[in-house]
């Protein structure tokens, strides 16, 4: 079965969601990944959207914003931002799934300023709820494109805290739980490894090479022991994706 790189990314991301988990879902690719997880291996996962929507089944229809009518129709709950964020602040959210523009060795994410806050080269949209999700979800899952200027030694602005400076830095800062668990890119899957929590290469996607992934990474990317190839999307996973992506936007 053929699949696009984005479809592989979505499926690899979906595999990070476990059954029965409460997952805070960001826009675009995270929404698709949640949908695929629900329709394949995680039929009892629950999706939380920052606008106040809580869903069991993925939305039927194209979404421009998370509050579009298709995402409200058939929702498990339509409430407010305060209530869904409260689920997370209260420690009930298993995983948060967000995108990023720039990430570093320790999984810190920047969606605020490229080139520093004083004289920014580019002003990115900002945190939205990402800083809070990164601080409080029990596991942070990140999905983004893998390019050298995005995968940097140290982000210029920490919008959403990962493992901060590595090791015990996150716990010492006062964040009692959570931290990045996986970074899914268009080339590979990265995971933190060892007491330092530095991101390591966990698997490379079909058609990519370890050297190629390393060349697209702005730090000296090490491999996890036994790093292999990301399994190609299975029939059930692709069928789930095609059910949600009716227009073939991600093909």
């Amino acid at each position, binding site marked *: 079965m053929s699949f696009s790189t984005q479809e592989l990314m979505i499926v690899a991301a979906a595999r990070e969601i476990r059954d029965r988990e409460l997952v805070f879902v960001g826009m675009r690719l995270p929404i698709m990944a949640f949908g695929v997880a629900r329709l394949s291996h995680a039929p009892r996962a629950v999706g939380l959207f920052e606008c106040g929507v809580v869903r069991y089944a993925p939305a039927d229809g194209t979404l421009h914003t998370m*509050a579009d009518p298709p995402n409200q129709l058939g929702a498990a709950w339509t409430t*407010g931002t305060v209530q869904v*964020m409260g689920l997370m602040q209260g420690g009930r959210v298993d995983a948060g799934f967000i995108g990023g523009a720039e990430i570093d060795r320790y999984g810190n994410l920047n969606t605020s300023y490229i080139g520093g806050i004083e004289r920014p080269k580019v002003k990115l949209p*900002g945190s939205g709820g990402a*800083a809070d999700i990164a*601080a409080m979800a029990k596991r942070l899952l990140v999905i983004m494109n893998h390019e050298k200027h995005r995968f940097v030694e140290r982000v210029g602005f920490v*919008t959403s805290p990962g493992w*901060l400076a590595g090791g015990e830095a996150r716990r010492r800062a*006062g964040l009692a739980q959570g931290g990045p668990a996986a970074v899914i890119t268009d080339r590979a899957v990265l995971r933190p490894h060892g007491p330092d929590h530095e991101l390591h290469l966990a698997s490379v996607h079909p058609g990519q090479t370890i050297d190629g992934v390393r060349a697209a990474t702005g730090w000296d990317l090490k491999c996890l022991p036994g790093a292999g190839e990301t399994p190609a999307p299975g029939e059930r996973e692709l069928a789930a994706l095609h059910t949600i992506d009716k227009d073939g936007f991600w093909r």
Partner: protein
Amino acid sequence: MANKGLISLDELVGQIGDGAMLAVPPDYSGVAMAATVSLIRRGVRRLHLVAVPTSGLQAEWLIGGGCVSTLEAAAITLGEFGPAPCFAEGIRAGAFVMKDSTCPAVHAALQAAEKGVPFMPLRGLIGSDILKHRHDWQVIDNPFSAQDPIVLLPAIKPDFALFHALLGDRHGNVWIGRRRELMTMAHAAAASLVTVERIYDGDLLADETMAAGCLPGLYVQSLAHVPRGAWPLGFADEYALDADEVRRYLQRARSPDGFRSYIADWDRPGSHDVVAAE
């Protein structure tokens, strides 16, 4: 507060003076775009704009119109349409003070105002550089437990909440349905100014099925009847985002003159029919 009842759009925005703190909802929640254009044409200045918690086209236009001196927001984005040109240029030129926040932080600070407390503690934010650059925020040690730093946010007390809703009645009651952020904004603000898609003939609070989704008129200073008042943004089940119009805007906003002429020419669909009917 005195409910001034149903008035015209220009009268409604006429109450927002220079230097006012204005709270506005995110693009999905009923944005008073017609009111926004009216404000820009009037030439309001030095607004302290609070996006609850994010904004898009509305903040972009107010910045382009030179109306904003301070912007507090969790994010400013036009989504799929790419960078917001006036916002980006304003940041580059230092045209306004940017107070970066996060979604729950904006809500929590409004909740403080709603409850009349000077600040609100909030879980999270720690480890983010957003916190480092917000000198008005503080981190304290939890007085009830050891080794538990917690962030305190000062209350945000807007002068006005401005938004668009589906229904309003002649008592000033406004039906907001699911959009709970509008309730928080309205409770925190000194007064709410609301444009509505339709006038409800009767008392919204007297109807058991409508009452739970209502903002009571005691928060609402003024209402204006403005059909398609959120256009070109989408509005609930009523109309979808007009993507072609957003692209037309982005085309014309490439120069300051283009922006000015766009706002001068702006005319929401059907506005003349409504004037004729009323």
